[in-house]
């Protein structure tokens, strides 16, 4: 047994601890004022404290670069992981900032505390290669998310969505746990690296195949990929907008990263191939099929939606399909592309849900028809939505375009044979063309349709307006000058040799 000093562990986990303390602090501060103050004020106070906590954690990470691998991969810290943690924390800051002035629940302290716990789950999730700890932190994250989805207790939709999410999540967690235990049985280790070592030179026996599919299923649920996506539209539609933003943004980022790590590290040597005409069994073809299905189904079904939240849910499924291309190609370049894409996508969705929440509050709904004539009622808000939608559609010079470009380019240049993955990329491009249709549908309502006659200008809370504009600006900036972000991403990843 290796002896490790506990102070060292505490130091390594200081950012997570800052978050936990912040969560408790939010609870403690909210408790005495819960009877007297207005919900909006409580949300503002709580959100400010949470944001300060997250920023403190970011500061701690940035200030003290760590490099550690404790207990055989149970806790892994390195520059690349710290980078991902910073990104997750920054996204959380944006989400809590969007909660300023909300009033969807009276349990303000609990809501924000659970959101922070979810963040802690994400941070732990990305900083381990031990399958047990992966499962534990995934459950911490998932349970927090179930609770967050249910927070709007006045709405039956919210409860239904949360229940579906929970049932679905429970089932897939069972699959995942079964898969992981099979893996342990095959390799006699809980460390992904050692697992990979053990299964490397074996033929693909049925147990491994079953474990592999179960794990893909478990994570596929997490990232909402077809055919494990059914929870997503209901949850996106029913959950409070702020929870939906968290579920669809930072949780997704963490989910994709751990999916990538488990598959690429844990199943190194069992990749197989999904190159056109050169199929070899392995996890890559399974993921490729999942990706292709997600892209096709997500985009096509999104066309038929009349609710903007459901539309975004199906578009999220489609985007999951695109991002899974990074797993299919699994090179260093594609990991950079995955990070870039997932983070910018998460920012865009936080913005989009921010706009939706404002429209819901002011126009009473989030159907496409509720967005009619928004440009006349709230021009700045509409401009932000324009940027978000066009970025999701992949229109240059926005970040969404550059993310897609990076992703597709890295996929094309990967593959064991030249242009072996061209079929997948061609499908992705064709499907993103289809996706433009429904994004433009939203914009058509905003810019061309006439507003309902009795409506006046929309009052946009100033804090949310500022955050939305900042997000829109950074999407524009990241698209115009992607190197600002890319160099920052590439450096630690090159060091870590993923």
């Amino acid at each position, binding site marked *: 047994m290796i002896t490790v000093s506990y102070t060292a562990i505490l130091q390594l986990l200081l950012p997570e601890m800052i978050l936990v303390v912040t969560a408790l602090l939010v609870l403690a501060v909210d408790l005495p004022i819960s009877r007297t103050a207005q919900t909006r004020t409580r949300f503002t106070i709580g959100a400010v404290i949470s944001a300060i906590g997250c920023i403190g954690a970011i500061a701690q990470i940035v200030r003290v670069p760590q490099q550690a691998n404790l207990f055989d991969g149970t806790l892994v810290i390195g520059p690349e992981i710290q980078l991902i943690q910073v990104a997750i924390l920054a996204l959380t800051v944006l989400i809590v900032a969007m909660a300023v002035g909300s009033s969807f629940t009276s349990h303000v302290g609990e809501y924000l505390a659970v959101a922070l716990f979810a963040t802690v789950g994400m941070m732990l999730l990305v900083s381990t290669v031990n399958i047990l700890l992966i499962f534990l932190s995934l459950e911490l994250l998932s349970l927090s998310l179930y609770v967050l989805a249910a927070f709007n207790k006045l709405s039956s939709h919210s409860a239904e969505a949360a*229940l*579906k999410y929970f*049932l*679905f999540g429970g*089932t*897939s967690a069972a*699959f995942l746990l079964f898969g992981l235990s099979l893996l342990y049985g095959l390799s006699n280790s809980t460390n992904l690296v050692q697992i990979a070592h053990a299964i490397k030179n074996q*033929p*693909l026996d*049925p147990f491994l*195949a*079953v474990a*592999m*599919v*179960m794990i*893909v*299923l478990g994570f596929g649920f997490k990232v909402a990929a077809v*055919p*494990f996506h*059914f*929870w997503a*539209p*209901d949850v996106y539609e029913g959950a409070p907008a702020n929870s939906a933003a968290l579920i669809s943004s930072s949780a997704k980022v963490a989910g994709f990263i751990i999916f990538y790590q488990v598959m690429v590290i844990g199943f190194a040597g069992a990749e197989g191939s999904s190159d056109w005409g050169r*199929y070899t*069994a*392995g996890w890559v*073809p*399974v993921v490729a*099929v999942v990706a292709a299905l997600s892209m096709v*189904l997500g985009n*096509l*079904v*999104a*066309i*038929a*939606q009349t609710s903007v939240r459901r539309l975004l849910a199906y578009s999220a499924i489609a985007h999951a399909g695109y991002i899974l291309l990074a797993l299919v190609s699994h090179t260093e370049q594609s990991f950079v592309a995955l990070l870039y894409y997932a983070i910018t996508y998460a920012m865009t969705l936080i913005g989009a849900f921010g706009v939706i929440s404002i429209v819901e509050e002011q126009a009473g709904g989030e159907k496409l028809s509720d967005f009619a004539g928004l440009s006349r009622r709230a021009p700045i808000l509409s401009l932000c939505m324009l940027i978000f939608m066009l970025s999701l559609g992949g229109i240059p010079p926005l970040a969404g375009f550059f993310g897609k470009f990076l992703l597709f380019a890295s996929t094309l240049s990967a593959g064991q044979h030249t242009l072996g993955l061209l079929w997948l990329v061609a499908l992705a491009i064709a499907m993103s063309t*289809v996706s433009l249709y429904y994004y433009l549908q939203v914009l058509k309502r905003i810019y061309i349709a006439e507003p309902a006659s009795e409506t006046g200008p929309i009052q946009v809370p100033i804090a949310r307006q500022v955050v939305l504009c900042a997000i829109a600006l950074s999407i524009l900036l990241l698209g115009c000058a992607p190197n600002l972000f890319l160099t920052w991403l590439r450096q630690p990843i090159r060091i870590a040799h993923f």
Partner: protein
Amino acid sequence: MTWIVRNLWLIPALPLLAAALSALAHRRHRLFAASAAIGSMTLSLLLCLIAFAEVLRLVSQEHIARLPFNFDWFQVGSEWLKLGWVLDPLTAVMLVMVSFVGLLIFIYSVGYMAHDDNFTRFFCFLSLFAGAMLGLVIANSLLLLFICWEIVGLTSYLLIGFWYQKPSAASAAKKAFITTRIGDLAFLLGMVWLYSQAGTLLFYNYGAGCLEQAALMKLVTQTTSLGIAASTGIALLIFCGAIGKSGQVPLHVWLPDAMEGPTPVSALIHAATMVAAGVFLVARAYPLMAAHGGGLGLSLASAPALKVVTWVGAITAVFAASIAVAQDDIKRILAYSTVSQLGYMMLGLGVGGVAVGMFHLITHAFFKALLFMGAGSVIHGCHEEQSIRRMGGLRKLMPITFATYAVGMLALCGFPLLFSGFWSKDAILHAASTWGVSRTPFYLATLGVLLTAFYMTRQVLYVFFGESRRPEAHATSPHESPGIMTLPLVILAGCSVLLGLIGTPAWPWFSAFINGQHARFELRGFAESGVLTVMFSSTAVLLIGLGIGWLLYSNRLNAESASPDAFEQFSPSLFNLLRNGWFVDTFYGATFVRSAAWFSDACDWLDRWVFNGMIHLISRLTLGASRLSRSTDAFAVNRTFDQSCRGAALSGRLLSRLQRGRVQSYLQIIGIAFAGFVLFLIWGHHG
């Protein structure tokens, strides 16, 4: 290098600044525009005087009397294009003349244009003109000179057409612009040629300029395919520019028409300064003009370019004077007189050198500006009446104008001893009489003196003597002009008299100064061979001209304004010929203008039927192709696309049915998917 040489650029910059400021000013800021123009001109005049004093100092201290200042403008390939300015006696004299006469005319304009709505614009243009003209004078680079040359051309165009509502003014402006442009084209060609041969357009650059020994030697020795030296060719092309600008035959036709502009403009631009720019250009490029195979300027008579200058000048002098004899418009008479006098200046440059031509330029600038402003005063006083036939008797009504006008008239005629015109014209005549090539120019110039005396007598008699012949319709009688207009007249009249003192044969200060030497006073100058002979003969000719004029017109002063002119009665056909300016305009109209119109018609026809036809053909073909592609699009591509879109939407609806909202069925699907994937992997592995 002294302060003034380094900062010589300030002289043109100040009026340019004033022009820029008044261009920004609102129309009603009249006082601002006028004071900016006059103030900047006063400062420029002060700087010019400082520059003049500096040159005087240099000449008296036996220095080299020429200080160039050059700087890099921009790089062309490996070569730097240089611009610069130069201070020498020629520049100094011109600077003082232009800024002084300019200032007086600016002041005069305040009175003359007082009732005009576009007063501000007028002063903006005047300042722009003054800046460009002063820039032209100080230029030490043919390119810079050309740039300023074109700007003064532009302002001339703008000011002739200042009353552009009048069709005659607009067409006169156009005519002036196009006619001078013909000369400028040749000037530009000459400049390009010079640059290709000499490699520089700087006049003086401490031995490396294009007017200095080394470059001239090179130019002289190069012979073109026409058999003339490159220097001669270039000089002639540059002289073409001068012909256009200075209204020499055959490009003189624009200058009389230019009188459509306001009278101060005629005085400043079309009498005193701009038209003299051509003369100045020849003087500036004199080393090039005088260069020929036998050496550099050893004997003026043998330089081919100067021979051309001489002949053009002599012919212009007589030709224009003859036309002036039969004109009725007070300003047109003066305009032809200007053309004639410019011819004298060219003649002087050709036969006598820079000093002779320049002296006449300076004296002429003063007395011709005086005459024009006097004419302006008359026109102003007679309520915009310009025909001398309908004036008369103004001597008593406008005494100051009359007195000053008489001084100008005598100076122009060259009345002996007292008036500056006498001395400058006599220097030209004397030089012409000693010209080695031919004595014809001398005879022509003498004939010109006779004609000048005649037409000026006619004009003055018609305008100032006798009884008024104004139509009865005019209620108010003519009146003397305000002080702001008569004061410049008096000052100019004084100058017209006094300036003669600096160029007499006894004390040839001016020519000595131009050549950078000292002048000594000695009466022996008169004793030089031919001087007195020429003086007496020209005086005799002048008196004959005055006498004929007096005889013909003094007894007909009170005739009706519609009755025929005395000269017309004497010889109607000759009078008609002269009245129509030897039909040069008619000739140009019938030949050049007609052929240009024919050519433009031909081009129009070609454009309309041939090129347009081709374009229409191509456009029809393109349209046909686009129709074809549209129908392909509509029936083949679009239908397929629509169908696939419909398919996509349909499949979206079908697939969304999977989402029934029942968790049980979702979980069933997950189970099926799991089984499917596992089978897929295992089957795939074995297969």
